[in-house]
């Protein structure tokens, strides 16, 4: 048994961390949060140059052909630094779906361009808050054209392509690839809790679309894609948890009340102990899911759901308690605590929220 990342993987992680510490300070996240842009295109170019977008794409499609484990450690660092780039949607979702389910022509058209950072892509599947995650009631496909409206599309404003779920005239529910640079597509930025990673609503009116993946396979493909993305997301969340806890520790150590360092009070220390426990459980579950993903083990579905449930809970807890231990300053826009609290919200919901994943976990556990 060797339940640890390899030295090479750790090196990739260290380099990513150092690069982001230098080039992705939280001020870049705040610029997007304040609405100055929808993502940091300069940073996007830099990480493309470092090969991050190419990491898990096959060499024959212009990628580096490394495994998912390498992508996991990069995800952890992107999560730690809250880097405002469309990595999540383009890499964890779109590139993975295309690589797993696209036809040869689609792969050749899109994967090299994604690897090279020239194409940004997103997944547009949600239609209504409270509706079943995989239903496409309002989006129809017929005769090569797609119509309907999707909401809460991460990176939908800046994406070049979208993968869209829709129902055809035979009530079949499939995925479609849509070039978003078409006249009859209307994209609107939607105000959301974490404005550092903007969401869009996208309205399609007879937009040209092509099938992606097998007919009537939307639910199957999305289930698999969400499982895979859940693993990467849990590493982003892990990075965010660690950053939140560290902020709290650094602040309370140098902050005094009643003549003592705030960090020396048992009530505060035990909050950190509880954060640590939540983080270590999330970390171990994320590692196990990463292993299952890397060898495509049959435990992946359960492991992915478990990692996601742990990571959602841990990030919510760490980011909210980091505000709490800061006292009043934690509630100010000026301090950075809220950046993590808001990101924890976004990541908790974006590929199905806690409710959905808890149910996935249990069905899979009982099926074992």
């Amino acid at each position, binding site marked *: 048994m060797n339940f640890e990342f390899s030295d090479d993987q750790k090196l990739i992680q260290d380099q990513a961390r150092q690069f982001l510490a230098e080039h992705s300070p939280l001020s870049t996240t705040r610029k997007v949060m304040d609405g100055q842009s929808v993502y940091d295109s300069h940073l996007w170019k830099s990480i493309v140059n470092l090969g991050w977008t190419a990491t898990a794409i096959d060499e024959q499609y212009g990628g580096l052909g490394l495994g998912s484990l390498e992508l996991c450690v990069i995800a952890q660092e992107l999560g730690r630094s809250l880097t405002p780039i469309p990595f999540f949607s383009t890499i964890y979702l779109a590139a993975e779906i295309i690589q797993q389910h696209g036809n040869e022509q689609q792969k050749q058209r899109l994967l090299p361009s994604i690897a090279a950072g020239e194409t940004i892509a997103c997944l547009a599947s949600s239609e209504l*808050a409270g509706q*079943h995650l995989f239903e496409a009631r309002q989006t129809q496909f017929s005769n090569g054209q797609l119509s309907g409206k999707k*909401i*809460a599309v991460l990176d939908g404003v800046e994406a070049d392509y979208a993968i869209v779920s829709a129902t055809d005239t035979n009530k079949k529910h499939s995925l479609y690839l849509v070039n978003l640079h078409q006249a009859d597509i209307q994209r609107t930025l939607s*105000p*959301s*809790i974490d404005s550092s990673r903007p969401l869009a609503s996208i309205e399609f009116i007879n937009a040209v679309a092509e099938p992606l993946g097998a007919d009537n396979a939307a639910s199957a493909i999305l289930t698999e894609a969400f499982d895979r993305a859940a693993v990467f997301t849990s590493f982003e969340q892990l990075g965010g948890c660690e950053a939140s806890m560290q902020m709290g520790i650094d602040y309370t150590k140098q902050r005094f009340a009643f003549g003592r360092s705030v960090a020396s009070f048992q009530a505060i220390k035990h909050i950190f102990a509880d954060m640590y426990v939540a983080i270590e459980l999330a970390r171990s579950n994320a590692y196990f899911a990463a292993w299952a993903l890397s060898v495509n083990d049959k435990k992946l579905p359960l492991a992915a759901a478990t990692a996601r449930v742990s990571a959602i809970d841990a990030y*919510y807890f760490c980011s909210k308690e980091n505000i709490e231990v800061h006292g*009043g300053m934690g*509630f100010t826009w000026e301090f950075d605590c809220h950046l993590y609290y808001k990101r924890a919200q976004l990541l908790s919901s974006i590929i199905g929220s806690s409710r959905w994943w808890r149910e996935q976990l249990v069905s899979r556990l009982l099926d074992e």
Partner: protein
Amino acid sequence: MDFNDTKEQAVFRAKAKSWLAANAQAKRQGLMAGTQEDRYQQAVDWYHKRYDAGFSCLTWPKEYGGQGLSQMYQVIWNQEVSHYGEPDEYFVIGIGNCGPALMTFASEEQKQTLLPRMARADDIWCQLFSEPGAGSDVAGLSTKAEKTGDEWNINGQKIWTSGAQYSRYGVILTRTDPEVSKYRGLTMFMIDLKQPGVEVKPIKQIDGGSHFNEVFFNDAVIPDNYRLGEVNEGWGAALMVLMNERLANATAAPDGFEDFLNWAKASDIDGVPASQDPIVRDKLATWYAQHAGVEATTFRMITAVAKGGVPGAEGSLGKLVGASMNQEIANFVIQQLDAGGQLTGDESTPLDGHFQSAVLMAPGIRLAGGTDEIMRNIIAEQVLGLPQEPRADKGIPYKDIPSGNTGA
């Protein structure tokens, strides 16, 4: 045990009911309807109307702008007004905390001049206690008041001052002697905030709002007859003010339950009414038991106060329970909605984005007026009588207390 009104109370309730029906606005849907400025102006107008109709500051003596009624009438008013959507938060601290302080410590002339204006919201008041280096540990404050002739010179900074941007006056706690232990060198004053040495800077919160302010004092001046209580006896005076805050906190802290219940009754999850969802029902049970418990605890406090008692540290309970419940409820509802739950302004977001606003406001409610941890300390030490921790600041002159704080 008896929940019935006396005859006089029933008459008052009927009067209040009919006046409210004619004059108060209905509840708005969203939490954040209108800008903060709009809401402030509405609040001022509402207080003018209330005052003129004889419904302001019911328990204050008539000569100071009140109605000279017992606490129970205030309770009745609060019950009736809670069915309407009139804003209240801008004057709660002035009327609830500063008013009683003036009543106890100000001169008769000051009381007659200042209190009726406060009751009618002609003057807004704020409370200037917390500082960047003294939040949970209020008595650790450092804003200096130095006497020259018949005046005091004020230098320092306050923070978390609700409503300072609208306030004409404040009640301020200052350090007048750093050579004695921290609790013994404090003095309390009224201060006119519309003077050159005072600068108010709103603090932007994580939800985008600005209820709180920083207030900077740079050789601001207070005449000695604005002093509230004796020199160096400000801690006792401040505790009295904070005690009044407790009652306000106990009855006013939003716990989010009503909104949760409304959501459960009105919404579907995957096509099934949320109120029939077993997980939602499980949460309804947990949170209703707490919500009902806090409400009934308030009845017990009101009964005690009506019998001439003083609101004790028990009031911490409502805020401690309610603030966390509010956060958990908001997060729970969002977690039922997948990605759409992140949207703050979409037509599909339930209750006009209430829970999305609440998840951002809630961390502040857990902090304002004492963190959860401070509330537990108060309960443990003041209610249950458990021993204090060893104190690094006990019996030491204020100036010698260890402090790593550098400001904000």
